[in-house]
């Protein structure tokens, strides 16, 4: 397995959804390729940060003017003729 092939399979490898043979090939490649070991670490870190840092961010602040405009839009949609 070469680096390009490993990186193309990296999502399946991380999701443990690759076949046993593919997984074995990935692990054999990782055993000999420090660049791909680094890449795997940083790729996995990136996904983890997206899920842990961004996904768990508190919800946005909505300033009062924006909230008022949204409420008016809801009222208008409810009463389009008014």
């Amino acid at each position, binding site marked *: 397995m070469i680096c390009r092939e490993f990186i193309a399979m990296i999502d399946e490898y991380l999701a443990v959804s690759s076949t046993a043979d593919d997984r074995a090939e990935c692990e054999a490649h990782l055993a000999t390729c420090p660049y791909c070991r680094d890449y795997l670490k940083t790729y996995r870190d990136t996904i983890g940060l997206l899920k842990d840092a961004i996904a768990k961010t508190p919800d*946005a602040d909505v300033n009062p003017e924006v909230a008022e*405009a949204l409420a008016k839009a809801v009222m208008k949609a409810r009463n389009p003729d008014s």
Partner: protein
Amino acid sequence: MGTGLANVLAIGDEQAVSRFVAEHAPRLLQVARRLLACEEDARDAVQDAFTAAVRSIDSFDGQSQLSTWLHRIVVNAALMRLRARQRRPEVSIESLLPEFYDDGHRVEPRRAWAATASELLERRETRQLLERLLAEIPDEDRTVLVLRDIEGLDTRQTAEHLATSEGAVKTRLHRARAAMRTLLEQAMLEADA
């Protein structure tokens, strides 16, 4: 049937509507911001979403949570705005993907950043950095990244939203993750320098 919004609309009380908006708008705006990477467009998408929700309230059958239903609507509203707006000048995602020699080995790979993921999570500025970098990903790729890795939709749900195949979603997700990794690497190496 109908809860929340339906009752609010039935009553028609402006204060009730305002409370309803105050409860749901923050979450919807968060989603729209990440998809659109533009504050004005995000607010417009949320307004579109509330309007659409009012008009289609009869189709809400209560089988899912109201918040889930609204989430689906705002994702659709944001995607419609993305399709309608003129393409912004964007960095090509190709320039953010790893390069390979003809023999398949990587071209000039850099060292991994020094900090561990948990160390990065502890830094207050990490979240702001990630949000900034996310906005640099080209629109179509960012969309898949947001829906899959941040909003937690699975491949099938994402494909339905985007009216595309699951295979296309997987390909785009891989490219978007790789691009985000490259951007984060550049930022981390600059910070470590």
